């Protein structure tokens, strides 16, 4: 699992590559923790290379989303595959996030 953070002025893009399972979640969570401070900006979670996500990953997403809501920013989930879309659906995340193709 790899998480690349690309900061570009107002938009912070996070490339998530691989499987975001419980084992990987801790490291990703730590890596993305500073973003909560910058949640007033637009954060794009690029999931085009994300194969898998479990509740641990979803919690990271949710935490960011909550921080962004507090700070007045924006979280965009971009390019999720169908499987992950199903997970988002099952968890009601489709209603919480702005999903981009």
């Amino acid at each position: 699992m790899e998480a690349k953070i690309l900061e570009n002025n107002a938009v912070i893009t996070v490339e998530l590559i691989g499987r975001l399972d419980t084992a990987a979640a801790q490291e990703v969570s730590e890596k993305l923790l500073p973003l909560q401070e910058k949640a007033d900006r637009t954060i794009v979670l690029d999931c085009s290379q994300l194969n898998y996500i479990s509740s641990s990953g979803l919690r990271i997403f949710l935490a960011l989303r909550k921080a962004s809501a507090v700070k007045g920013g924006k979280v965009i989930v971009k390019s999720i595959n169908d499987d992950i879309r199903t997970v988002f659906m099952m968890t009601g995340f489709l209603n919480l996030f702005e999903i981009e193709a």
Partner: protein
Amino acid sequence: MAKVQDTIKHLASLQGIMMIVVAALMLAATSVIQSYYARKGLLSEAEQRAQRELTITQLRIENVTGPVESALVNTAWIAQMNLSKPDTLHTLLKNLMDSNPVLADAAIGFVADYYPEKGYWYEPVVARRPNGEYEEMILGSTSHDYFKMDWYAMPARTGEKYWSEPYFDESAGRTTVVSYAIPLKDREGKLVGVISADLTLEWLSDLLHDFQLYPNTYCTLESAGGQMIVSPPADRMDNKSEKYSMHLESTGWDMSIVIPRNEIFRTVNKLSLMLGFLQLMGLMLLGMISFKSVRDQSKLETVRSKKDKMDNELRIARGIQMSMVPKQFPPFPERKDVDLSATIVPAREVGGDLYDFFIRNDKLFFCIGDVSGKGVPAALVMAVTRSLFRSVSAHEKSPQRIVSSMNESMSEMNDSNMFVTFFCGVLNLSSGHLHFCNAGHNAPMLLSDSVEHLSVLPNLPLGVMPEMQYVEEECYLPAGSSLLLYTDGITEAENASREQFGERRTMEALDPSLGVKENQERLLSSIDDFVGNAERSDDLTMLIIRYMGADKSSVTRRSLVLRNDIQQIPLLAEYILAIAEEKHLGRSLAMNLNLALEEAVTNVMLYAYPKDTEGLIDIESELKENAIEFNISDGGKPFDPTHAPEVDTTKSLEERKIGGLGIHLVRKIMDEVHYTRKDGRNILTMIKII
């Protein structure tokens, strides 16, 4: 068996009888010989005694007849001198009578017409009367014609002295007499008459009845003419007797001593009787001894046959005992995931070692045990232990519960204070996850990269303490590793100098890269080389299990064991991938299953096992016709994820909680989710219909 015994008894008694018969024959022969010589000796002694007696009696008789003879000769001489005075002859005869009291009478018979004045006959006689007086008589007449009488006729004719036959003298003595007569001659030698003296026979009878050589012995005296002077008693005639005789020259009499044979042999008869009695007693004693010895021998035979029977039964018991443990190797030739080899090399005595194993639901149940002590009691306890293991493990898959249950049963009925060291393991063949519980047995050896002891709690042997709390332990057997279970007969095998084989040699004999059979042979031959010719005192028992890893080909069950570590989670993906490939499941379904599984396992790691504690999580999947069933179990603290409150996915962002998503996903993905707490374990069952 009974028939053989009877035959032995019969032969033995026959032998006894033969012995008695031979002894009896020998005794009888001895008796006959002894009796023969004794009789011979007694006979010759009797003869000697009789001859001596006869000689004495002869002397005593001649002591009487001799004086009579000489007196008569003297009287004849005086008579010759006085032939011219016939009237003096009575006086002469009286003198003769006086000097010889045995004479009844005496007489001189003259030839016819010797004294013409006296007539044709002239015979002066003197007879003794019962009152002692003498009666003088002159006899000689037609009625008493002495010329015709033997006492006169014989000497007159022969000119010799003459002892007559006994006869009754009517005229003179009036008693039975024997006459002694000699011719009377004148000075020219011409016969002038016969001078005779009659001897009464009473003195002879007295003389001959006087002695008692043997009881019932008698004497007879026979005249030269064959008449009895002294007769035998009438009642003695028919008895079997020995007769000893002597001829008396002077009188011509024959004297005999008759001794009844039974009197001669009285002593020997008595002796024979006594000997016979003793011999009979001896024979009876011999018979009794022989009978007793026969009985003893038959008793001995009985004891021996009993011992044989017992040995035989022990052998059978041993056979039964050996038949109670699996002996077919390889036991599961069709399985690629596990191989076993086990053996009990029996010592001289029946022992109490055991091992057992079987596979149920892809789990290998196995055990090894060693009953304290030896012999039949140990064998019986071994049989009980093995039966208990089978019956308890039939409905129980936790080694701890198997061991505890066995311990309770064995402690309850342990009146003989025997205990069993026991090791019980359950190996999940689809994962290599091993649960085990030890009851005082020596720790098995794990043959992985190297050979080392498995870390095992000792606990207490079975049957010691009913309330003993046994602790279950677990570990993971890597594919290709082996486990050696053994009894102390292996490590304590002694050579001639009483050194023990020990654990080091045991470890050195094993090679982790080899199969079970090879390792068993290596270990046994190593022990053989070490022990040499020393006697084996204990069974050598070993059980080697080699786990080859889950058989990937065509299985309906798959298992996975994870440690309590988040970093193990990615293994679930591989696990699901394998199942997906097997069942040709779609990628999405596979991902969903992976997700559900991950959430369930993560919950266990987060809530059942405290952080950073050791713990294993078993994941089993069973592929069914139209469903997949997962079982996730752990030994952590009770945690029921199904009790978690439902997450409301419709809530607004502000109301949404961070947690609770995991179990929510599980519920969403799976068709059925159940939780049970069993045997100290959390078991979560999830079913997905496909």
